[in-house]
């Protein structure tokens, strides 16, 4: 199989997020980026498919802070090829990102063959314009499913499991080539030691593919970004852990829970 995994960097929400002076973007000063969580599952699912059915895994990303580390880590985990498009991902909305990837897949650098699966993560925390996989599938005119939690190749097609709610899933048969938004891989994303990543950094190369920048960075008219005004706020309990534990036990007793 010809497997493409799309990796995207998103702000790490463990850090404090602040709105920049323009009121329409995040303040980059304290922003730390990490790879989108479902993208890591997309990579794992691709590696599992390659191990089972053979083929080639190509990881693709746009330019973003710390993205080289992420691409090298993917190579260390078993990806065969890494491509970086030198267009700033952070400024692009999802529609423009999808257009950029559509241009990549129309180029000889990354052709869509009949056995191709394009695997973005199912969603990202900054998907204001919608999911990348859905927009990309439309741009490429390919079948699409999101919230995918399992993929098996059978007779030139794939059997795909998608999550609904309450633990309910559904199985679909999807013709190739296709775009699948991966929510969770069949196994947790694998770990790779830092030493191996360092070794790969010395031996492997990230290919650069130049593409025209999309004409419009954002598809929506953004008025402003702002921090939510908190309607309710938990009553915070202070003190030593023993004092807090006693206070919680009192609360639970008052409520008749214990």
């Amino acid at each position, binding site marked *: 199989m010809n497997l493409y995994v799309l990796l995207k960097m998103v702000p790490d929400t463990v850090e404090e997020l602040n709105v920049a002076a323009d009121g329409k973007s995040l303040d980059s000063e304290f922003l730390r980026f990490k790879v989108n969580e479902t993208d890591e599952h997309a990579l794992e699912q691709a590696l599992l498919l390659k191990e089972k059915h053979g083929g080639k895994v190509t990881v693709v990303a746009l330019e973003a802070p710390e993205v080289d580390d992420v691409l090298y880590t993917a190579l260390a985990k078993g990806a065969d090829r890494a491509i970086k498009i030198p267009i700033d991902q952070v400024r692009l909305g999802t529609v423009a990102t999808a257009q950029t990837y559509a241009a990549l897949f129309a180029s000889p650098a990354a052709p869509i063959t009949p056995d191709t699966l394009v695997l973005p993560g199912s969603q990202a925390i900054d998907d204001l314009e*919608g999911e990348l996989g859905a927009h990309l599938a439309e741009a490429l005119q390919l079948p*699409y499913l999101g919230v995918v939690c399992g993929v098996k190749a059978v007779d030139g097609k794939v059997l795909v499991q998608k999550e609904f709610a309450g633990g309910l899933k559904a199985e679909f048969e999807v*013709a190739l080539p296709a775009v699948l938004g991966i929510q969770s891989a069949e196994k947790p994303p694998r770990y790779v030691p830092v030493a191996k990543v360092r070794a790969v950094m010395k031996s492997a190369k990230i290919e650069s593919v130049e593409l025209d920048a999309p004409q419009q960075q954002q598809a929506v008219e953004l008025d402003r970004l702002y921090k939510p005004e908190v309607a309710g706020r938990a009553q915070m309990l202070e003190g030593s852990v023993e004092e807090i534990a006693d206070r*919680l036990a009192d609360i639970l007793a008052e409520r008749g829970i214990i």
Partner: protein
Amino acid sequence: MSAVILVLAEHLKGALTDITFEMLGAARQIAQATQAQVYAVLIGNNVSGLANQLGSADAVLVAEDTTADQPSAEVVLAVLQQAWTQKQAGLALLGGTNVSFGLGARLAARLKLPLVNFCKAVRVQDGSLVCTSQLFGGKILSDVRLPDGRGVLNIYPGSFPAEAGKSNRTPAIERLTVPAAEPKVVFKQLIEPAAGDVDITKQDVLVSVGRGIQTQDNIALAEELAQALGGAVSASRPVVDQGWLPMTRQVGKSGMTVKPKLYLALGISGAPEHWEGMRDSGLIIAVNTDPKAPIFDFAHYGVTVDCLELIEPLKAAIEKKRASK
């Protein structure tokens, strides 16, 4: 402003889902300010019987699709496009749920209109529709303006009251034909969740663990605390993705919706997808080292210590309290 709003009625296993009524309520709110007509679009196999529950729409457009139990995305998109053109619609509301996942973006791409994802609130302002979305796991909000109110909205579950979208009125019904669509994605079957050891939806007390539990071994500590409280252990998505607990214990969007008397969240940040599954819990106590974690915005009590340090003292305090009664 456009005079017609479409709402995609969402259903699963023969029943309309809550989000359908939330969307109808939201559509009615917009319609009141703009004198728009609201059409519910109901697509699927043997769905006509559900139409009479959609009385808060001005009319229901029904497309019977006998090809599969779950209508394929291609069929839904083709019917929505047909309804859009026929009714000269300007706005479509779809569920920001796993069932309707991706349809909004694809519809918007086909209509060449903007999509606003994660939409939690809407208001009409100076002839535009302003849509508020929650981004970055609920840490930042955005206001997007749809000029002339034209676009597609993915409505975030739990954002609008479902009651506002319910009515005893019998709606007018119009039939739509189902356009032939090439079946590239074919529904095969529903897969019911494996019967778990514990049904977390039936527990009065849940001790729920997130990333802050750190290792699989530490889940045993949470189990002990749950036992002391007479409850069970549930989890947020990252813990289940790690394979530390089965999916039957997962609370949230893809997992279970729970309403225990006590929801004790240990090391859970409280992303919107998690909130969806536990927001109606009676008493929410959150323990998280990050004082800015979103869970403190909707918990009743909060503690900013490492949950691993609190488990033992809390268990002891509970046992002491029980013994003193």
